[in-house]
């Protein structure tokens, strides 16, 4: 189940790659060459990368990885990193003109960990500007195309990461997920994407969109790859005050084709309601049927408050964004204007006018609106209360069930230009993914089948720190839909 760009060699996962390299170190160079061949052939059309590292540089780093005593858990994997994750010495644009030439002086914690684990950064992937979008069309530079159908979007905002993985232009990728930005592109590109429990993965070095919702997570072609990357990047980081101090297991132990224990699952009625494509629901039904065959009980429940998750999510996300993006004034980094004689407010306004795209401006203005004097209580505070209500509902739900299952996206991937012009249409793509972020829960999107030749993703989510369960069930879904590796 790979798009046409992939070759057998390039489709290889971390586990096999590592095993082959252990046997024969030269295999790593063959593999790198193969990936760069695909990039050379297709990247011009797909445009997954904003910054691609030259092959020589990657080969040099591979040599260093091989010289180390041990291969590390990632064993020379080529990791594509979303361009809102800071990489020391490698330009990090956040998909924005504002940071077009910004080169971070430090590595994000996840990047440090990837490198230590023997991963090699292959490049920085395209994204909606400041992660604000669901199609990657809001990139300041260019849209990315879906490897399965070049007329369609790869989803967003981690569209570049998902497309790079799907088209075998990388082994695995890192994305970030604020309201679905890992899961939606995973669903649209037939890949596996995991958004961890809030606080499981350090945000240090992640350029913030909405800090209380953002999480970094892996995207891979199979559940096993995602489990391996998660094992590397998860765990406490003293540089992030929202980082959880928890024991991180080796998540590959959960990659099992059989249930590791008896599970009870739930389908939330609001997530298969109006607006969700009939064909998509059929894909879900097929998967649910098969899961019941594994002795998993599946029940239906209604959570009416979810009707308010979209406005609550966008109010909170935009409020935080308006604050997080205040620092981009052109003074210390980012685009620079020589403005002697002009007042700072004028200079800043000019820099921000030039540097930010329309969607970013919309969200900053609205975020400013909902936080402003007199409106705060009606919008921001109320949204935070809705968030509490959603959080409480899920807590109650997951005292009864081990995980929930839903379509990741309401429809198969739209065509380029189809939704981006209408913000409400764009926002509604996130209808099933945002409640998970509001509650800080872990979720995974795994391919569930195809509709009209286009991939459809199934979302599994559960209580905090249930990543193991989700990985186990996701692996079962892979088997159900005939994923072979």
């Amino acid at each position, binding site marked *: 189940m790979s798009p046409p760009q992939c070759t057998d060699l390039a489709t290889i996962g971390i586990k096999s790659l590592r095993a082959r390299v252990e046997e024969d170190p030269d295999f790593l160079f063959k593999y790198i060459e193969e990936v760069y061949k695909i990039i050379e052939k297709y990247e011009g059309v797909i445009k997954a990368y904003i910054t691609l590292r030259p092959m020589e540089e990657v080969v040099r780093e591979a040599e260093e990885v091989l010289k180390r005593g041990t291969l590390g858990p990632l064993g020379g994997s080529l990791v594509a990193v979303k361009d809102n994750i800071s990489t020391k010495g490698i330009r990090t644009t956040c998909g924005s003109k504002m940071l077009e030439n910004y080169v971070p002086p430090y590595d994000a914690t996840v990047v440090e960990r990837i490198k230590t684990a023997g991963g090699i950064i292959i490049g920085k992937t395209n994204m909606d500007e400041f992660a604000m979008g669901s199609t990657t069309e809001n990139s300041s530079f260019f849209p990315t195309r879906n490897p399965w159908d070049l007329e369609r979007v790869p989803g967003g905002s981690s569209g570049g990461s998902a497309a790079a993985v799907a088209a075998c232009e990388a082994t695995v990728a890192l994305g970030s997920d604020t309201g679905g930005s890992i899961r939606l592109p995973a669903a649209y590109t037939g890949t596996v994407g995991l958004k961890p429990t809030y606080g499981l993965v350090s945000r240090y070095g992640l350029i913030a969109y909405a800090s*209380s919702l953002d999480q970094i997570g892996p995207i891979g072609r199979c559940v096993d790859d995602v489990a391996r990357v998660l094992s590397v990047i998860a765990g406490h980081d003293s540089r992030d005050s929202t980082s959880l101090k928890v024991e991180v297991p080796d998540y590959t132990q959960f990659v099992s084709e059989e249930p590791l224990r008896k599970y009870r699952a739930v389908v939330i009625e609001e997530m298969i309601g109006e607006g969700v494509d009939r064909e998509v629901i059929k894909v879900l039904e097929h998967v649910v049927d098969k899961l019941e065959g594994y002795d998993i009980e599946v029940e239906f429940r209604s959570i009416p408050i979810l009707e308010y998750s979209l406005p609550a999510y966008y109010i909170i996300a935009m409020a935080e964004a308006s604050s997080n993006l205040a620092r981009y004034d052109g003074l210390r980094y980012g685009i620079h204007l020589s403005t002697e004689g002009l007042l700072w407010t004028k200079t800043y306004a000019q820099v921000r006018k030039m540097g930010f795209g329309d969607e970013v401006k919309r969200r900053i203005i609205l975020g400013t609106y909902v936080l402003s004097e007199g409106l705060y209580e009606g919008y921001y505070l109320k*949204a935070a209360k809705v968030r509490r209500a959603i959080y409480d509902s899920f807590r109650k739900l997951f005292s009864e069930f081990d995980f929930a299952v839903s379509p990741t996206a309401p429809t198969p991937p739209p065509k380029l230009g189809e939704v981006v012009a209408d913000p409400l249409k764009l926002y509604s793509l996130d209808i099933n993914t945002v409640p998970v972020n509001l509650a800080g829960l872990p979720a995974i999107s795994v391919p569930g089948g195809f509709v009209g030749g286009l991939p459809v993703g199934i979302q599994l989510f559960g209580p905090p720190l249930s990543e193991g369960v989700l990985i186990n069930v996701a692996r079962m879904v892979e088997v159900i839909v005939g994923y072979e590796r």
Partner: protein
Amino acid sequence: MKQVELLKKLMTLALVEVDETKLGGILRDLEKIVEMFNKILNLNLPNDLEPLYTTYFGERNVREDVEESVEESERCELLDRELEEGYLKAPRTL
């Protein structure tokens, strides 16, 4: 008309500007989104429901008061700008 003024006020507050010609379009989009937001205005929630600002549930993360040794040259490189005797040049202020 009033809406345009509000929009301009917000743009001044947030220091983001758009071209005059785009104002109408932006305003239309914003109104649609605000209408979506307004859905929560009339929602009745229990009075004692506490707002939730973060889902972080771990213990408190604080730092010990220990200086990190960093090379001065490394610190200098943090500002990727032309400096005037070490100072960062900034626009005129009041």
